[in-house]
Structures are given as structure tokens and as C-alpha cells.
């Protein structure tokens, strides 16, 4: 019925408000994170601003990380509204999407100055408990930033 034909999105400039030090910190935190899995399970990870700009990504093609940043931003905002509506908090802490061949995990990184989101793509081989443990360390590491 009412389908929309998408034209190619023109690339939007990454905002200058994201400082180089924040990018460097995000990159090193992500690097440490994926190292914990020795190449098994984690397919990629990206840290983005709450409004969907990528700050740093690892083990992921840039186009995919940019797109995932925007998608996670929308999903995360809807997650926040849902937790608020149901009365289980003002913000979600994590959202899990299970696909046929893997998972996407979205975690809120609270920060007054620059609220962020961690998105992790993982295959089914991943150990969920281990992943959540190290993902939370990323959140803690970045929340102090």
C-alpha cells in the first residue's frame, strides 16, 4: 500500500561536538572489549551518540557502523519510552534483538554531557553472560568519560 521509496541518504557531517579525546577513549575501550572474545562470537561493536552519530567502531565496516548507529538510536529511544510508560525506570539499560543467526545488543551509556549508546553484533556462538559482563564494563568505562 503506502510504501516509501527511499532515495540515497546524503552523508551527514559528523558533528564537531564529539571531541578527539572522546573518540580515542571510545576506540580503546572497544578494542579491549573485543579482545576478550578472541575472535569468537563478537561480529562488531560501535559506540554512538544518543542521536545516532558513530563515535568509534571496531570489527565492522564503516557503512554498517554508521547505519547501525542510527538504527540503535531509534530503538534505544523507543526502549526508554517503553520503560518509562510501564514504570520500570526512566531509561532502558539494555535491549536484545535475536536474529536467526545472531544477536544485537544495545546498551545505554548514561552521561549528562554526551549520552551514548553501545551496539554489539554477535553470532550465536557468543556466551551471553560473558558478553553482558564485558559490555557493562564498556558502559562503565565510557560513562566516566
Amino acid at each position, binding site marked *: 500500500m503506502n510504501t516509501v521509496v527511499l532515495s540515497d*541518504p546524503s552523508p551527514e557531517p559528523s558533528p564537531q561536538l564529539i571531541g578527539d579525546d572522546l573518540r580515542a577513549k571510545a576506540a580503546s575501550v572497544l578494542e579491549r572489549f573485543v579482545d576478550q572474545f578472541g575472535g569468537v562470537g563478537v561480529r562488531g561493536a560501535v559506540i554512538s551518540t544518543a542521536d*545516532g552519530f558513530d563515535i568509534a567502531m571496531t570489527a565492522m565496516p564503516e557503512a554498517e557502523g554508521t547505519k547501525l548507529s542510527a538504527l540503535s538510536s*531509534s530503538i534505544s529511544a523507543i526502549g526508554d*519510552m517503553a520503560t518509562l510508560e510501564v514504570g520500570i525506570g526512566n531509561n532502558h539499560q539494555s535491549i536484545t534483538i535475536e536474529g536467526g543467526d545472531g544477536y544485537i545488543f544495545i546498551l545505554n551509556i548514561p552521561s549528562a554531557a554526551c549520552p551514548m549508546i553501545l551496539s554489539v553484533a554477535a553470532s550465536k556462538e557468543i556466551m551471553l553472560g560473558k558478553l553482558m559482563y564485558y559490555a557493562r564494563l564498556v558502559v562503565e568505562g565510557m560513562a566516566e568519560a
Partner: protein
Amino acid sequence: MIEHKILFTGTVGAGKTTAIQAISEIPPVCTDVLSSDPTIGKEKTTVALDYGEISLGKTERLRLYGTPGQQRFAFMWKILAQGALGLVILVDHSRPDPLRDLMIYLDNFKTLIQESACVVVICKMDESHPPLLEDFTQAMKQKQMVYPVIPADVRDKEQVLWILELLLVQMETRQ
């Protein structure tokens, strides 16, 4: 209760969230987050959707959805367009190229516009410099799109209700 889905789209900062807040009878659902983009000139921006409701008499209700403005959220445009019966495009006249802005939404929502109803609203209109209303109408005519183009202040409830009126008239004549 007959329900219609109406979609608000348009440039970032034009007032999509504001328009829905102005007329919704329920506390609107908003997905505003802190903006990290200084070029859009406001502190918060919609990243998923806005939602509000307004009833028309005892038998009809409009469900009002707002889209994010920025093009990197175009996937939300596609999702939100499903089942919509009318589209309101808000264009911010104070941006550098409002005509080009309008074209982005006309192109992306082409099918929805052709199958439903559409009103183009020029926000923050400054008639002392182009493009004038006729310029918008002319640009649409070149795309074989003939729909109302009106200036409005979407902070004003009465003016937003007038926009919906224009949309509903089109929807009724189509049925």
C-alpha cells in the same frame, strides 16, 4: 471508533514535535534526545517518532505520528508511512535552501502522497525574501503534485487544527 493515521514529516527543527504537542489530547510520546549536531540549532532532536491523539467528534480519532527530520533516520520514514492516510510536510523557511528541503520529502514520500492526502506547511515564513509561497507551489507543479501550501505557526493549536482540516477535506473527497 474510526481511526486515521496522520503523519508529520519535514526538516529538522521545523516543528513536527511542537505541532503534535499543540493538539494532542493525550500526553504525547516523544523520543527526543540530546542533539550532538550544532548545525541544527536546537538542543534536542527526535530520533524515532512522536505520537499523539486527537478525537473528531464522538466517532473519529486521528492518531498523529511525527518522523525524525534527519535523513539518516530515513528507515523510520518508511516504517511510519505504513498505513498513513495523510501527510503533513513541514518546511523551515529559515534554513538555507527550503525548496531543496521540500524536494527531499516529496521524493521520499512520493507513493504515500499519491495514494493519500498531503499539505505542505511553511514554518517560520519570512516573506521579505524568497522562496515565496508561489515558488513552492511551482516546484510541486513540476512534479505533478498539486496540494495546498500554507504558512503556519505550529505552536498555535488553532493553526495546526486548520492544517488537519485541509488534510481531512482531501481525504473525504478521495473516498
